[in-house]
Every structure is written in structure tokens, then in C-alpha cells.
């Protein structure tokens, strides 16, 4: 592990000395650094993560009722999912709706507040903490009770609307609106992407703004020309992570609908359905198949995002 090895690694591979003992040393010097730094991760990946993942892939081709040994059934689970399972398409629709609306809203909110809170203003630490508060609540049981107090037909939100003479619907328990209350909940817990945006904003060198304001660039222009481009790695990160999380979103629907996904399956998130199959109906094999389909969808989406990232994410390297 010397500086030389890294320099070697950066050079174009030399092909002349194809068959010689130094091939191995060259391989070593080119790759050892990376693999040594990744050693803990490899231990975790091969020791703890990979095994269970492969098990679940295997289980997706079986009938596994949790309590007795799994039975190999071939692709039967997948066939049923795509041909005879109306709840699969229902839950997929619910989840896609949630992803499409909650992710952009949450990110826009988080970025907006982060920009506001990034400026040197009095009391900022306290504001930041207060804005992070909803995210601290996590999956607390209290959220379920609270959301009902807010969004029921006679809830606080409708009381507020009544001041303006508007009679609001029963947001949380009406199948036409219930999913929206979960979108609101997700956006309301915008603390984590906000913090990541804040950290990203801190990484932008101050002198770039100084130079820009000398050139007479307005704040608005500075945002578009400096802040946003330099923030794209963080925007990209938040976008990918929030999308993956939204696809996998489980807890909010679980606590708000008591794990049912009702009214009329309007909040039956994909993972909630998967959970019901696995733990309420004892069909872990089927649930595993659902999980791997989700992985394929999310993986495809992520790969696509990475491909496009070349065109809009600016790294310094």
C-alpha cells in the first residue's frame, strides 16, 4: 500500500508484460487498496447480508408458511402475482402514486427550508431543531392518534378550513383522500433530506459566492449557477434514497391504517401487502416473490437514474 500503487492504478494498463510473475503483483498493487478499505463491508456483505438475501430469493420459489419447511413450487408465486392477484396491482398503484407525489414534494420542501435555514440568521439552530422534530417521532404510536386528530372529519384541519367557510371531507378515512394524508405525513417528516441538503450547502466554498456577487450576479442567478450545480451530488443522493424509501414505505401506512391498508385498500402500500402476506397469512414464499419484484423495479429505476446522472450531476472529480 504505497502511493506508487495508486499511481499505478491510475495509469492505463500495460500489456507487454502479459505473462510474468509481476502480473500478480500488478493486480495486487492496483486493487489491494480498494479491497482493503472495503474489507469491513465485505465481511458484512458476505457474512450477514448476502446469505439472507439469497435465502429470500430461494424462498420466493417455494411455499413457505414460516412454521414448516419450505416446498419448492418453481415460478408459481410469480405466475400468480402477474396473472391472478388483484391486490398486487392495487398495491403497486398505491405505491407509485405515493412515490410520484411524496418524493418531489418532500425534496422541494427540504431544499427550500434548508436554503432558508442556511443563512446567518438569529435562532437558526433552534429553528433547525424544530423543523427536524417531526422526523424524530419516527414510527411512534402517537403519530396514528395524532393524525386522526388532525385529519378526521371533525379534526383540526377541518376546523381550520371552517374558518374560511370550507367544509373539508374526512381526509383520513375517505378512500378518495386517505392516501393524501400519508403523502402529507411523509412530506411533514422532511427532516432527513433537509439535514443532508444543509450539509451539502455547507460544502459549497463561500468564495464562489463572493466571486459571483462581485460579478453582480443576483441571488436568484447565484442559486441556479452555483448552488444548484454544486449541490447536484446531494440532490441526486436524496432523490435516489427518497425514491427507494418511498417504494419501500411501510411504517406510516402500517400505523395509520392499523396494518389493514383500508379504507378500501386505498393505503395498501406494496410492502404493507407484502407484510400481510408474510406475517398475517403465513405465506412467506409469496411475500419473498413480491419483494424480489420490488427489488427489480427499484433496481431498474436506480440504474436508469445513474445512467442519466452523467448529464446533470456535477462531481468535482
Amino acid at each position, binding site marked *: 500500500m504505497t502511493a506508487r500503487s495508486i499511481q499505478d492504478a491510475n495509469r492505463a494498463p500495460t500489456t507487454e508484460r502479459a505473462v510474468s510473475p509481476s502480473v500478480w503483483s500488478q493486480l495486487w498493487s492496483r486493487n489491494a487498496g480498494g*479491497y482493503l478499505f472495503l474489507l469491513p463491508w465485505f465481511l458484512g456483505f458476505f457474512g450477514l447480508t448476502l446469505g439472507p438475501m439469497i*435465502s429470500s430469493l430461494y424462498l420466493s420459489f417455494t411455499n413457505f408458511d414460516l412454521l414448516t419447511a419450505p416446498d419448492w413450487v418453481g415460478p408459481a408465486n410469480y405466475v400468480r402475482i402477474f396473472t391472478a392477484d388483484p391486490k398486487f396491482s392495487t398495491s403497486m398503484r398505491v405505491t407509485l402514486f405515493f412515490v410520484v407525489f411524496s418524493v418531489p414534494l418532500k425534496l422541494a420542501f427540504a431544499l427550500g427550508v434548508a436554503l432558508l435555514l442556511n443563512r446567518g440568521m438569529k*435562532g437558526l439552530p433552534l429553528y433547525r431543531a424544530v423543523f427536524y422534530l417531526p422526523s*424524530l417521532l419516527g414510527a411512534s404510536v402517537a403519530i396514528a392518534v395524532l393524525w386522526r386528530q388532525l385529519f378526521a372529519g371533525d379534526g383540526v384541519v377541518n376546523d381550520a378550513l371552517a374558518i374560511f367557510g370550507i367544509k373539508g371531507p374526512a381526509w383520513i378515512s375517505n378512500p378518495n383522500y386517505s392516501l393524501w394524508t400519508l403523502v402529507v405525513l411523509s412530506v411533514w417528516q422532511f427532516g432527513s433530506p433537509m439535514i443532508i441538503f444543509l450539509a451539502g450547502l455547507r*460544502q459549497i466554498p463561500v468564495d464562489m459566492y463572493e466571486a459571483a456577487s462581485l460579478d453582480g450576479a443576483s441571488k436568484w442567478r447565484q442559486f441556479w449557477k452555483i448552488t444548484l450545480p*454544486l449541490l447536484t*451530488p446531494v440532490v441526486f443522493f436524496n432523490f435516489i*434514497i427518497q425514491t427507494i424509501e418511498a417504494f419501500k414505505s411501510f411504517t406510516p401506512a402500517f400505523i395509520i391504517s392499523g396494518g389493514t391498508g383500508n379504507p378500501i385498500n386505498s393505503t395498501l402500500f406494496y410492502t404493507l401487502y*407484502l407484510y400481510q402476506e408474510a406475517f398475517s397469512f403465513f405465506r412467506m414464499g409469496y411475500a419473498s416473490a413480491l419483494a424480489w419484484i420490488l427489488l427489480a423495479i427499484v433496481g431498474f429505476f436506480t440504474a436508469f437514474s445513474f445512467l442519466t446522472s452523467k448529464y446533470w450531476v456535477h462531481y468535482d472529480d
Partner: protein
Amino acid sequence: MTTDVQRLTVVTEKQTAAVKTRKRLLSILAHVLLIGASILMLYPLLWMLSASLRPENEIFTSTSLWPSAISLDSYFRGWNGLRLGFGTFFINSFTIAILAIIGNLATCSLAAFAFARLEFWGRGFWFAMMLATLMLPYQVTLIPQYVLFHNLGWVNTFLPLVVPKFLAADGFFIFLMVQFFRGIPKELNEAAMMDGCSPWRIYWKILLPLSTPVLATAAIFTFIWTWDDFFGPLIYLSDIRTYTVMLGLRTFVDSSAQSDWGGLFAMSILSLLPIFLFFLFFQRLLIEGIATTGMKR
């Protein structure tokens, strides 16, 4: 990345009184907006506080924020509930969270450095694998993982909750750090290499000191998420002496039987205190990070 400090001072002097007034007005407006939004954010906390102080049979029936009678009973009852008292649970939660922070910061930053700064065969592949671990819903790996930990004899200990953190099992943090490391100018890296620095020295002496914001972010998230984690402790901890705060909170309430709602809300309030204070303290690092490391030069 050029700077010009002298010209900057000229600019500040140029600011006229009119600009200053406009700035002040803007700042007042911002405060009004922020305070308004803060109330929205604080409402749940106020509601929980009022629920923890009011008689139990009022929690679900009354819509007013103000309790008809105030009593601290719920706090005493809640603290001493569940046979052991919440003190033990707080100690357990702290132990797990602190270990998780150490593990995550140490090992995720190593992996992230490799992905962000080192060239090696299969880098893209392993990075994709790392991301894939984020995409599979945990519900289906739960049982194989439980079997694994059970065979290792780790069930009913903190190990299933802590060891994965020391093996960089949370891809979220690796990915996060990768994005930030890639934002640090590569010239620094290359200059150091020219000077004959080993990757370890680059990681330790150059990259980490410049990464306070992202490390602080990771520490904050690890603490809060570990503290809030409920499913891991639910599955792996059975002995009440090993329970965490979140697990304790969940056992207050069973919707089919008589539950201690007052105790739940009282202890929920108390359980928020440590993470709130931790956040308040660590966010300073998040903010001060760059300014103190001389990144500008």
C-alpha cells in the same frame, strides 16, 4: 476555485442604507414564516405533552389541547411500569446507539472512501451490490437473518443490532459519504499522492478532517434511527432487561386490552429528549464544519 478577499470587503462597504433596510424587512418576514411553520411542526409535541398530563379517559374524547386537570401521574406510573423501570431501557438504548455511531462512522467512511476515491477492479459492481442491499424489503430477509443470528447464539443480546454497524451493513451511509467525498476537490487528493502519501494517510489526514458535516450528519441519523428503531429490538430482544426505550413504549399499548395510554405519551415525551438534545448539540458540527477546517484556501 479562486478567491479574492480584498474585493469582498469593497463590496460590503458599498452596501447602502437602503439595502440594509430591505434586508431587515426580509429577515423579519423570514422569521414570521419560520415561526408560523414551527407551530405546525410543534403541534404534535404539544398534543403529546397535553395527552401525557391529562386523565386517561380524556385522551381520545377531548379535542382541546388544554387538559381539564393536570397531573404528573402518567410520568411516575410510566417510568416505573413494565416491572423494571425506564431507566434500564434508556441505558440500553444509549449503549446500542453509541456503539452504532462508532461502527457506522468508522466502517462506512472506509468503504465510502474506497468507492469515491480509489480505483480497483469491480468497483462499479460492488457499488451496485451495495445499493441493491438497500432495495430489498427487510421483511423477507428477517427470518433467514434471525436463523443466522440464532445459530451464532446472538439472539437476546445487543449483537444483532450492533455488529452489522461495525461491518458497514447500512448502505445508506456509504452512499451518503460517497456523494460528499466526491464533492471534495480531487486536486487535494492528487497533490497528496504526488507527495507520496498512502491512501490511508489521505483518508485519515485529508478527507476525514474535511468531512465534518457529513460525519456529523451520519452521527445524527445513526443516533436517531437507532433510537427510534423498533423492529430490530422487537425481533432480537426478548429479555425485558435488554429492552430499548422504543420497545418499552410499544408494550404500553395493546389495542385489544386495557392499555396505559398516559404512560405511553409521558414516556414518549421523555424518550424524545435525548434525541432532541443530541440533535441540538451535533448540528453545530454540521454547521461549523467547513468554516473551521480552512477549506476555502
